[in-house]
């Protein structure tokens, strides 16, 4: 087989190789870590780009590791959802470029290679999680990305980071366990671990109770990973106290893994044809998501710490995504507006949130301050960063013509379609609430005179500006125009496939 046929595995292996070699390189030449990581990630994102185009052209790609036909071996199933791997690689690249100065500036000498290793590992885990077609393999990759995530939070070694990390670890470990238990239950009634095969066996399996309990366990586990409302306790501390590049990774990408897990479970394994009716749990999810939107926005409103604010807004945006998922119509007659919207929002929110956290990181890097009240008039000192941040803010609120708007439009439309106008209203007003607290950032940034604390603050170095500017441009360009179509056009067949049409 040609090299391009090997791409589905290479997209996981390239960062893994980089991760494995990173400590060795770091032991000899500290300076080479960052270039090496950049190189690996750029190769990965090229591969991802190729695969994305391939999927878009000719449907999902199935790759059999070790030449074992599924269900005997492990299958790597690269479908439209798995194309998120490309996004992970790309944003990972930007974040690594950004974190060059951070690592040199804030970390002690010997932790630099460790930092890059962990970043590569967590990206590997996420990519693997996204593309794998085997349930147990998914669990393994989930562990990789979670463990490296826990460690990354505590890497700076400052006060409280260990506590935040531990909180995350405890909850995360329990959630992984519940996923594993779910896998156990499903395996006991299907006798296979390959997702598609499992879906087939589940249709003939005569064990509704087992299947429902398994589904519940899965939903619980993944809602913890996605920080859905009652299970979101770990998120704010973890995302706020972590170093900013790490917060960008966690908040932009890692949280999405819970969502992708849910998608796999709901639509691939249980699916539309399955004997188990997933609708009731969808109802519950919808209400949880609604609560998440409102409460996330509500708590964010009272934060003074920028990163806390961003963390809470992540929670409420996850609410949007899950709301969209939960309103996916299972009857053929309806258009899957909501599903498309939330799938697009998975990507958009990743972009916006990475942008925002990088901007916050840039500000903290220059000023060392993170309280909003200390940062008055920062906009006059760091114009480019703050301009980018404002773009991010506008898009996360979902004001056209930025990319945040499209998904809200679609999800609201889907809510209408599902006859849940209440949710649509809630969503739109939730956006309003979010704006209410983001306007505080803009106010302090632009309409105040600089305090003497930040009197001699300069714009951040180029290696930090480049990712920020690129992402900001993305937020604008992908919001409108023919480019604005691209994510939707790409995701629509995916949604159709998920709904088995």
């Amino acid at each position, binding site marked *: *087989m*040609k090299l391009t046929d*090997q791409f589905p*595995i290479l997209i996981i*292996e390239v960062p*893994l*190789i980089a*991760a*494995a*070699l990173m*400590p*060795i390189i770091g*032991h000899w030449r500290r300076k080479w870590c960052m270039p090496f990581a950049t190189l690996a990630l750029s190769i990965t994102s090229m591969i991802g780009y190729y695969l994305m185009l391939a999927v878009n052209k000719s449907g999902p790609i199935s*790759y*059999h*590791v*070790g*030449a*074992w036909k599924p*269900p*005997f*071996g*492990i299958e790597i199933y690269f479908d439209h959802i798995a194309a998120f791997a490309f996004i992970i690689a790309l944003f990972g690249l930007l974040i690594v470029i950004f974190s060059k100065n951070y690592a040199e500036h804030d970390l002690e000498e010997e*932790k630099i290679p*460790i930092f890059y*290793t*962990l970043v590569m*590992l967590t990206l*590997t885990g996420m990519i693997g999680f996204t593309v794998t077609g085997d349930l*147990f*393999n998914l669990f*393994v*990759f989930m*562990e*990789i990305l979670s*463990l*490296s995530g*826990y*460690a990354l939070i*505590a*890497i700076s*070694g400052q006060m409280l980071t*260990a506590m935040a*990390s531990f909180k995350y670890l405890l909850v995360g470990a329990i959630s992984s366990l519940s996923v594993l238990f779910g896998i156990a*239950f499903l*395996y*006991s*009634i*299907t*006798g*296979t*671990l390959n997702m598609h095969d499992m879906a087939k*066996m589940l249709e003939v*399996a005569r*064990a509704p*109770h*087992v299947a*429902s*309990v*398994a589904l519940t366990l899965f939903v619980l586990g993944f809602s913890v990973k996605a920080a859905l409302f009652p299970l979101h306790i770990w998120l704010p501390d973890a995302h706020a106290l972590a170093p900013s590049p790490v917060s960008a990774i966690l908040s932009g990408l890692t949280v999405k893994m819970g969502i992708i897990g849910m998608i796999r479970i709901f639509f691939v394994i249980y699916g539309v044809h399955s004997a188990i009716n997933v609708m009731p749990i969808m109802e519950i999810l919808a209400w949880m998501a609604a609560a998440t939107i409102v409460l996330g926005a509500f708590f964010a409103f009272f934060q003074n710490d920028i990163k806390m604010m961003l963390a809470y807004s992540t929670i409420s945006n996850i609410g949007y995504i899950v709301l969209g998922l939960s309103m996916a119509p299972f009857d053929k007659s309806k258009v899957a507006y909501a599903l498309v919207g939330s799938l697009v929002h998975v990507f958009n929110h990743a972009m916006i949130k990475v942008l925002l956290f990088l901007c916050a990181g840039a500000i903290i890097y220059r000023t060392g301050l993170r309280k909003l009240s200390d940062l008055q008039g920062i906009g006059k000192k760091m114009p480019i960063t703050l301009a980018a941040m404002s773009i991010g803010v506008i898009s996360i609120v979902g004001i056209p013509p930025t990319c945040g708007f499209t998904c809200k439009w679609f999800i609201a439309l889907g809510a209408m379609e599902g006859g849940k106008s209440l949710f649509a209203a809630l969503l739109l007003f939730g956006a309003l609430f979010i704006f209410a607290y983001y306007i505080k950032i803009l106010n302090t940034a632009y309409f105040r005179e600089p305090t003497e604390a930040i009197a001699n603050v300069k714009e951040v170095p180029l290696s930090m500006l480049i990712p920020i500017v690129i992402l900001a441009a993305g937020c604008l360009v992908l919001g409108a125009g023919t480019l604005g179509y691209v994510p939707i056009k790409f995701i629509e067949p995916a949604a159709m496939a998920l709904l088995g049409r």
Partner: protein
Amino acid sequence: MNKKVQNYFVLIVMLLCWAVFLFAVAEMPLMGDPGNITNTHVVPRYLEKGVEEGGAPNIVTGIILNYRGYDTSGEVTVIFTALIGVLAVLKRENIKKDKSLVEISPVKTSVIVTTVVKFLTPLIILFAIYMILHGDVSPGGGFQGGAITGGSIIAFTLTFGLLATMRKFRLSIRIPLESSAVLAFIASGLVAMFFGLPFLTFLIPGFGFHTQELIRHALFIIIEIGIGVATGIIFASIFAAMGKVSKE
């Protein structure tokens, strides 16, 4: 008091959860029944063809290395991650600055212990090596062997202290060895790729039957050794990082 009430409440909730589980359990296929779907759907192939396909009389090893080898590569990545995570939280021990608990503990290690450990460690390591190399025909394999090696190293450290142990492995050797498992997997996967086969294919066509067997066995051995060494060193390093106490 309040806390007690809380605990009772939690207890009740837990029992409810258990009840829910029991409903599922009562519906699960009967345990030990050969006719279960778990024993009829995928597994028979492993049991029938396992020896010639999987290439190991010990089917479990065959599955670990061959059928589901990719899981195992993920597994070694996980333990590698664990090590790096531990190093990120607590730094690597530093021979000059740090001591181990034994060195600062008031109790003097008795002669008996030292002698026994001195005497046993080589034997344990020998047993570990046997287990690593013999994993495909008998229970055990790279990981178990590695764990045992790690245990022996830990015992050695506990007796003779950080300094004495860690001087035996210099950092420039340890670091490559720690990632050797991941690298071994990737290497043997890349071999297959080089011949244009999917990742982690061990049976490479285009050679004579015996050569194929030989290559496969060689790859197995490489992986097993990689896993074993890496696991041992990783456990030792984790232990050293956790057990160090800075001098001041």
